[in-house]
């Protein structure tokens, strides 16, 4: 896990870390993207923050590879018991009934994303339709730093 944990997370809170990822992604892809944080941001268990950050990175990679989007927004919603991360784009979308197969050479990797979230008692929802953009939504328990495992 250590190798996957970006240096930014060691010092910055999750919203800032995501913001940093987003800025870099925007510069490389040329697509404007914004992060909206709702609720009261607070430190969560490192495993949870790391998983959300990775989800953001992978969802953004998918947008860049497949979506041809004009608008991308990440929404990090801190609620009482859960935190959700939504990555929504207005791009090409795809047919949920015929989902693209994960592959090593730039597939969507949605199954891997879901597995990673399941490991921290989270869940992943994908909403999409051809021509209607895609929303990837991760929902994880809001376990604060320092909580007994």
């Amino acid at each position: 896990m250590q190798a996957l944990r970006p240096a930014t997370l060691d010092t910055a809170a999750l919203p800032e870390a995501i913001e940093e990822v987003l800025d870099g992604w925007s510069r490389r892809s040329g697509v404007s993207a914004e992060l909206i944080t709702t609720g009261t941001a607070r430190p969560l268990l490192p495993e949870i923050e790391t998983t959300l950050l990775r989800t953001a990175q992978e969802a953004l990679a998918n947008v860049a590879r497949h979506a041809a989007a004009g608008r991308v927004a990440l929404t990090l919603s801190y609620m009482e018991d859960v935190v959700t991360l939504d990555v929504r784009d207005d791009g090409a979308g795809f047919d949920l009934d015929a989902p693209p197969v994960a592959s090593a050479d730039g597939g969507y990797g949605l199954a891997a994303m879901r597995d990673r979230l399941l490991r921290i008692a989270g869940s992943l929802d994908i909403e999409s339709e051809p021509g209607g953009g895609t929303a990837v939504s991760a929902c994880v328990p809001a376990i604060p730093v320092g909580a007994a495992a």
Partner: protein
Amino acid sequence: MIGLLIVDDHPVVRDGLRGMFAGDDRFRVLGEAGNGREALVVARAVDPDVVLMDLRMPEMDGVTAIRELRAQGSRARVLVLTTYDTDSDVLPAIKAGATGYLLKGTPRGELFRAVTAAHRGESVLSPAVAGRLMGSLRSPAKEPLSQRELEVLTLVAQGNSNRETAGRLFISEATVKTHLLHAYAKLGVRDRAAAVAAAFECGLLGTD
């Protein structure tokens, strides 16, 4: 077209309702009944989409009739249309399976909207009834709604579906649902109609 069954023990009320719906070709009155027991027989014969049900009637009351309609497998949505808005009337009717609860004297336009909404399976409560329900739900030390929950509830109150609300906020429907569930819990309600009514009642949402 929405097929209606009118159940009321007063012929003059049935006539009034029949006349009201006769003037609008979205609706068709398929039958009438003077009490709950008759309602079950007529409902079986005409298979209405929506039943307008009075509560206090001889032979079989409205709540029992609603329960029996369910038991006999009727697909009809039941809209209670009654004079009474006391707790002891409202809650049992909703528990028995009523889709909506309106008071007699509800203006024509509102009644038509309510029937159409009930037909779609949406909950319908007249403001007086919603207020009544809120009274029994309001308890101290409720957590306040978050800014985002209010935003979601405002969009829902404006008639947006979860999908449309998600589109407006540019988030997923899944997250819209999560916000709504939290709002329901905080307001002590179980569905979106009650949540919207409750939020208006508490002054959390404006009236325009």
